[in-house]
């Protein structure tokens, strides 16, 4: 294991290994989540909402009769798609989901063309789709019973599950209101044209190239499988709506209710406590259940709670994708042209599928393919009758890495070059070789023992049938400060109390990333107080706090600290100005450490903050900042994963023996949290690479494994030895110049594993997940 990272700048708090600030609260079970805050005992008048779900992969409701359900004792309200207040809602599923982004309001939404989803629609597009009717009742059991009493006459429509089948002429059309004669989505102003990027002349370069390779991959649609299911409680009294939920941004949730239901922003109160992880799920923030729960609360005048069961939690996935990549190169390894084509499976609704296909690609092109002069990138999304796809941690990048990493590995083999040297010759932010990229690749190679790597299929064999191989993959890290400018002003408040303690208002929903610890450390660092004396509020409440930072883009851990640094320095200035006359010196001659102001030239002479502030009122020092992030374009740092696998050629089982995850982060804000991301992210990533897969019955379109028994999330015995390596090579703008990392910990894993499998057995399996049946098939054993 690693001996631990040393920061290039020695600081007291930032860059130090330490416990999470919320460690005890969480370890002791005292941390409250939304389901804990909304018990019936706390809201005695509470009702429970349930929604009818489609048993068909594609169908229309011809007739619905809710009279028996309405007559059931304990049922307090039934709403259907025919009700005017439901029918008039114009959801987009893609509008103000991301508080980081400009489309905060309805008229500025993303994806204006793809308004393919309605609240309680009579048109259902996957098995499990929210259909037609929602009920509110005195208990969950009564609400469930009421759903069974609803009589629905369905018109089953032809359906299609397979992406390639869905693209063929004659396939059942899923959203004729969007495209009358095809399931392929049209270009949209937010996503851009189908050919996202075209420069140079790829065809001419392919014709001239010494070596050309063509790669094809198939990425599937894993799901977040977060431990905490969606849950909300809505209270709508008179003109005021209050919502408790596990959304990932409270102010954005307020905006959602305000825009959709016509309530002024100052009359929508959104409260978000700790949440049981995010991982992209909540980026699809415009969840329909928020709206029908609110309408039920309005209709009954009582608080209404809605939560997903584990089965219902399987409602959103990563975008399954067919990747195609052609690369042309000179004999010396200079890449002259790349043609990349991504075809995404949107599932039943568009969601943020286009973000995975188009919006995420420019950062990859800018920071990895900068030097490739002839480049063509096309991207298409296709409807199918499967769970809707959208945002999942590492959106777009994971799939792009999977296809690009294959093409690179194939090209290196054909050229007879070490793939690491091929990468350094061609990829990265100029000038090449990129220092950050080179650092992570060399370090990762050293730690995995890259020199042990043999030619494909020629690696060592153990116990007669187990073959070992080594693979790697690299990616750009994204979400440096210049990439986060769309957030607009970032707001924080620092209040120093009369006893010298500090309240830090840097509101953000704590999803587990450790960004709250980063915020507290940055405040303590700049102000000169002890980190244990800085209190950060865990519950975000739009009625009482400045705008919260949305937990997206893996970036809160560094964007808040940059602005906290400014506010805390201002608070420090105020403190030194107060102390100077007391100590008989100028403020410039003073410093603060551990809550004590002292004279730099005579450190023994000083005054404790609590003594300085005592008698000056209860909130003597207040400093706030509302500032945009540094905009200087500084490039990005890079990440890599190196993996050694063992493939059992008798059982087809792939076992990861060792994994090294290397990140350049600019500044490592909180090493314990950063390493936790590097190690922990592999639960999602190794799961989707090897074991997790949603399985459908092809005859009926019914998903078969919406539970945590048959949808196989890695558990403790499955987890390999993972070595996290954090580095500081690149630096962004600002005091810290750090870069987000929560998503990039995933981007390299599937490809690194797939390349290692190839290295072990000399056969390529580029269809995720890499399950034993595919391995045995490749080996010709089944």
């Amino acid at each position, binding site marked *: 294991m690693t001996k631990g990272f040393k920061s290039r700048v020695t600081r007291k708090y930032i860059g130090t290994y330490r416990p999470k600030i919320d460690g005890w609260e969480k*370890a002791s*079970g005292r941390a409250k989540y939304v389901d804990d805050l909304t018990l*019936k005992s706390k809201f005695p008048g509470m009702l429970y909402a349930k929604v009818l779900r489609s048993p068909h992969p594609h169908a229309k409701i011809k007739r619905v009769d809710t009279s028996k359900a309405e007559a059931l004792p304990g049922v307090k309200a039934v709403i259907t798609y025919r009700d005017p207040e439901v029918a008039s809602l114009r959801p987009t599923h893609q509008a103000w989901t991301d508080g980081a982004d400009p489309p905060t309001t309805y008229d500025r939404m993303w994806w204006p063309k793809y308004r393919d989803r309605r609240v309680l629609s009579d048109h259902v597009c996957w098995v499990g789709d929210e259909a037609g009717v929602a009920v509110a009742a005195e208990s969950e059991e009564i609400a469930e019973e009421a759903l069974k009493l609803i009589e629905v006459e369905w018109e089953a429509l032809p359906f299609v599950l397979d992406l390639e089948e869905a693209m063929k002429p004659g396939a059942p059309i899923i959203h004729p209101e969007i495209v009358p004669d095809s399931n392929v989505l049209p270009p949209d102003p937010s996503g851009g044209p189908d050919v996202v990027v075209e420069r140079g002349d790829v065809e001419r370069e392919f014709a001239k190239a010494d070596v050309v390779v063509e790669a094809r991959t198939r990425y599937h649609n894993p799901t977040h499988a977060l*431990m905490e299911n969606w849950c909300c409680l809505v209270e709508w009294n008179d003109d005021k709506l209050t919502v408790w939920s596990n959304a990932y941004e409270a102010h954005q949730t307020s905006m959602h209710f305000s825009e959709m239901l016509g309530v002024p922003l100052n009359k929508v109160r959104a409260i978000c406590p700790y949440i*049981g992880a995010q991982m992209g799920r909540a980026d699809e923030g415009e969840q329909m259940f928020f709206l029908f729960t609110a309408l039920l609360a309005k209709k009954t005048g009582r608080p209404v709670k809605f939560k997903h069961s584990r089965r219902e939690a399987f409602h959103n996935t990563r975008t399954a994708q067919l990747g195609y990549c052609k690369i042309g190169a000179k004999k010396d390894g200079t890449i002259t042209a790349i043609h990349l084509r991504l075809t995404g499976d949107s599932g039943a609704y568009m969601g943020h599928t286009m973000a995975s296909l188009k919006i995420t690609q420019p950062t990859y092109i800018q920071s990895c393919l900068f030097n490739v002069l002839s480049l063509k990138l096309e991207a298409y999304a296709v409807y199918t009758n499967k769970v809707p796809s959208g945002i999942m941690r590492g959106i777009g990048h994971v799939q792009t890495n999977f296809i690009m990493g294959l093409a690179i590995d194939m090209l290196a083999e054909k050229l007879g070059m070490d793939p690491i040297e091929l990468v350094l010759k061609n990829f990265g932010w100029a000038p090449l070789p990129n220092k950050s990229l080179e650092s992570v690749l060399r370090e990762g190679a050293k730690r995995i023992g890259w020199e042990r790597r043999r030619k494909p299929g020629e690696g060592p064999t153990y116990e007669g049938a187990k073959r070992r191989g080594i693979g790697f993959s690299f990616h750009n890290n994204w979400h440096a400060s210049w990439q986060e400018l769309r957030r607009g002003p970032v707001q924080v408040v620092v209040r120093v109390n009369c006893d010298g303690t500090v309240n830090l208002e840097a509101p953000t929903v704590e999803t587990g990333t450790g960004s709250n610890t980063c915020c507290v450390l940055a405040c303590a660092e700049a102000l000169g107080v002890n980190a244990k004396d800085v209190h950060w509020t865990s519950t975000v409440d739009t009625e009482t706090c400045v705008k919260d930072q949305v937990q997206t883009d893996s970036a809160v851990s560094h964007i808040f600290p940059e602005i906290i640094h400014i506010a805390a320095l201002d608070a420090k200035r105020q403190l030194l100005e107060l102390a100077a006359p007391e100590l008989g010196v100028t403020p410039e001659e003073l410093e603060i450490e551990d809550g004590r102001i002292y004279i730099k030239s005579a450190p023994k002479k000083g005054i404790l903050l609590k003594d300085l502030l005592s008698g000056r009122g209860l909130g003597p020092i207040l400093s706030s900042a509302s500032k945009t992030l540094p905009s200087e374009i500084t490039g990005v740092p890079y990440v890599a994963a190196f993996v050694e696998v063992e493939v059992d050629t008798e059982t087809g089982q792939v076992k990861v023996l060792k994994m090294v995850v290397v990140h350049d982060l600019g500044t490592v804000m909180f090493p314990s949290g950063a390493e936790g991301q590097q190690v*922990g992210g592999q639960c999602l990533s190794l799961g989707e690479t090897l074991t997790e897969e949603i399985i459908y019955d092809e005859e009926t379109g019914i998903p078969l494994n919406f*539970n945590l*028994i048959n949808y196989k999330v890695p558990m403790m015995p499955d*987890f390999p030895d993972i070595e996290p390596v954090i580095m500081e090579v690149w630096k962004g703008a600002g005091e810290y110049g750090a870069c987000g990392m929560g998503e990039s910990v995933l981007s390299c894993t599937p490809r690194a594993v797939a390349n290692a499998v190839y290295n072990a057995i000399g056969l390529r399996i580029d269809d995720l997940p890499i399950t034993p049946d595919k391995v045995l098939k490749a080996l010709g054993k089944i």
Partner: protein
Amino acid sequence: MLPDRKEGEFHKIKIKVNGTVYEFVVDYDIKPWHTLAYVLREKLGLTGLKTGCDEGACGACTVIMDGKAVLSCMTLAVEADGGEILTIEGLSAKDPVIQAFAEQCEPGYGTAMQCGYCTPGFVMASKALLSENPNPTVEEIKEALSGNICRCGCYPAIVKAVLHAAERMRGEVRR
């Protein structure tokens, strides 16, 4: 209480939870199909345990019943009649397992929790393990905790936390 039944026809159950005995009348206070998880959370407000799946697949609802770790979502409340339940709320604030989970920051492993939703389940499963086996090996820890999911993937740090908790409980104090 129940208009159609006379005294003596009520089925009462008694469950000792964190040292206090609670009495529930079946069909009135609780239903026969209510799980222990439901009763602990909804009736007693003990929200440390979480119902992550409600089908015994994730371990987030783990509590200790009569000394053994059980999945409270797979245990009916009536099955706990006469039993003794320990939930995470029943542990001392300075409990060595809680402390070890809270403080894990040994370089190379990350923290023992991120979102924290699964953590009470892991803590209780670890508590049960350590009460039976005060000096577990890494393999024994992995086996004992193999029914708990941490989607944030803190498994290696959790193993460390359990090892550290065991050291503390054996009196090998470490900082």
